[in-house]
């Protein structure tokens, strides 16, 4: 046990906390200044967490099997980029993206059909709401059995997982445009499709992006968990489950880091896209 590590970590923690305390209370006149401070505060907090993690690991000499310090994980990441890239390609570029596109696409089309037929809406929506709450990950072993060990089965799990949130949200979104707007379209003598493309789909976009954002996380989870049930010898889920068995915890953390990075980046990308598409929405308008 070395107290210097712990002391250093705690001091750093307190220093960032104090800085944040000061920064959070201040009001900046300049808009860009305020914006960058708002970004800086969580980054400082995250850095403090990392340093505290490192300090506690080194200070109390926590066995690396239990919790490796961040520096060791980073060393592992830089040392084995080729394995990480191969896993990333297998799990993310093949399974997740294919499944995400198919699941969201079919959910979207199903939602438009459901919206067109009121009987289906009454019948399918309660069922869809229920299914969206079910532990669908459990379908993974069945999909592996049907579609084999390669990425197709993982994509199938992702399709099922992403379908229902998309369906439910899009149907809710299509109902979001107001009566007045719809009546206006009616007075223009616009057809069903014109109303759909010019009014109702744009109005549904916030809901659709909500589903896309939920699905981006779900898709990664689905693909990784499906790999626990059988996979070729490559893939993030495969690597995690085998390296846990071999007690190579730093490799597991490296894999988690990649997953977290991929998850956050795709979420961020969708958020940016949302901003571009729904620029008219009150929450994005300049105040």
């Amino acid at each position, binding site marked *: 046990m070395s107290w210097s590590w712990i002391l250093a970590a705690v001091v750093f923690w307190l220093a960032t906390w104090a800085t*944040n305390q000061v920064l959070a209370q201040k009001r900046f006149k300049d808009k860009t200044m305020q914006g960058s401070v708002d970004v800086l505060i969580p980054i400082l907090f*995250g850095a403090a967490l990392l340093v505290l993690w490192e300090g506690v690991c080194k200070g109390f000499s926590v066995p690396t099997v239990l919790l490796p310090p961040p520096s060791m994980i980073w060393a592992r990441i830089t040392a084995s980029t080729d394995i990480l890239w191969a896993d990333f390609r297998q799990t993310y570029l093949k399974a997740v993206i294919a499944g995400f596109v198919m699941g969201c696409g079919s959910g979207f089309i199903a939602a438009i059909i459901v919206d067109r037929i009121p009987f*289906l809406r009454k019948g399918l929506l309660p069922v869809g709401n229920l299914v969206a709450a079910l*532990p669908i990950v*459990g379908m993974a072993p*069945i999909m592996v059995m049907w579609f084999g060990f390669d990425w197709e089965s993982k994509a199938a799990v992702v399709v099922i997982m992403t379908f229902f949130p998309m369906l439910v949200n899009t149907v809710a979104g299509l109902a979001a445009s107001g009566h007045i707007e719809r009546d206006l379209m009616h007075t223009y003598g616009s057809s069903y499709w014109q109303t759909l493309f010019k009014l109702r789909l744009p109005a549904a976009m916030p809901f659709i992006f909500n589903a896309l954002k939920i699905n981006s996380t779900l898709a990664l*989870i689905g693909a990784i968990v499906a790999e626990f049930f059988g996979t070729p010898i490559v893939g993030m889920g495969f690597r*995690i489950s085998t390296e846990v068995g071999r007690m190579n915890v730093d490799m597991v953390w490296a894999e988690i880091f990649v*997953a977290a990075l991929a998850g956050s980046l795709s979420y961020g990308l969708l958020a940016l896209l949302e901003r571009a598409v729904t620029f008219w929405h009150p929450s994005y308008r300049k105040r």
Partner: protein
Amino acid sequence: MTLQSFLRDKLIPIGTVLLAIFALWYVFTVVLNAPFERDQAERAGVEISTLELISNTMAQKRPILPAPHQVAVEIWQTTVEKNITSKRSLIYHTWVTLSSTMLGFALGTTLGILLAVGIVHSKVLDKSLMPWIITSQTIPILAIAPMVIVVLNAIGISGLLPKAIISMYLSFFPIAVGMVKGLRSPEVMHLDLMHTYNASRAQVFWKLRWPASVPFLFTSMKVAVAISLVGAIVGELPTGASAGLGARLLSGSYYGQTIQIWSALIAAAVLAAVLVMVIDLIGRTVTRRMGVVA
């Protein structure tokens, strides 16, 4: 709701959809299992009539897709006809999963509420913690599940707690976000009224913010309980398939017992639906007692 509108808006549409699902299920059973039967008949060198083929596809031991009645029979056998302490009883496994779900859910709800209270009352926490709470959910946390289980097992913590921790991690997020929204939902006018009463922070919290947030709490609890069940099931996967619905799924997939997988899935689905309904019922009762007009 009158009986007629109940029939028109609920029973008939939902019933039709459910019937359609069952019909499709049977069709797929026949289509997916038929190649195996044809293969068997060909090897035995006998002609098989279409009717025989269809009835055979619904009675296989290890079908690709079991027929609904096969799953129903399996569920009946493993719930009613087995002693509930038996390791082959579905009720036993459901109970194992339910207990870790509930523990994780309780922990997650507590953590979520505490975080929300902190975030609402401290500007620093709001600015520094909130972005990380959101980032924490873009991490596919279930990926860590096997590691949490194995590592905690290595230092001697096993059984309920590791699974509950995974459930907690998954379920605190909707609670925290919902409660932040709920605790901030009182209008400025109400807050000003409390201010004119010279109410302390604690009084504002207990008499205004907390009651105002209760509907939000129950809405997010419904989401949270469903995902803590998912967490518990995934948490059971790497424990070496000892007990729980996740273990049933895993052992079923190892030994090709599709009927067992499907019955575990149905059990999980029923459990999820019941949990959500119970929370919904409690929520409705509480909000009605608090004077909210439904």
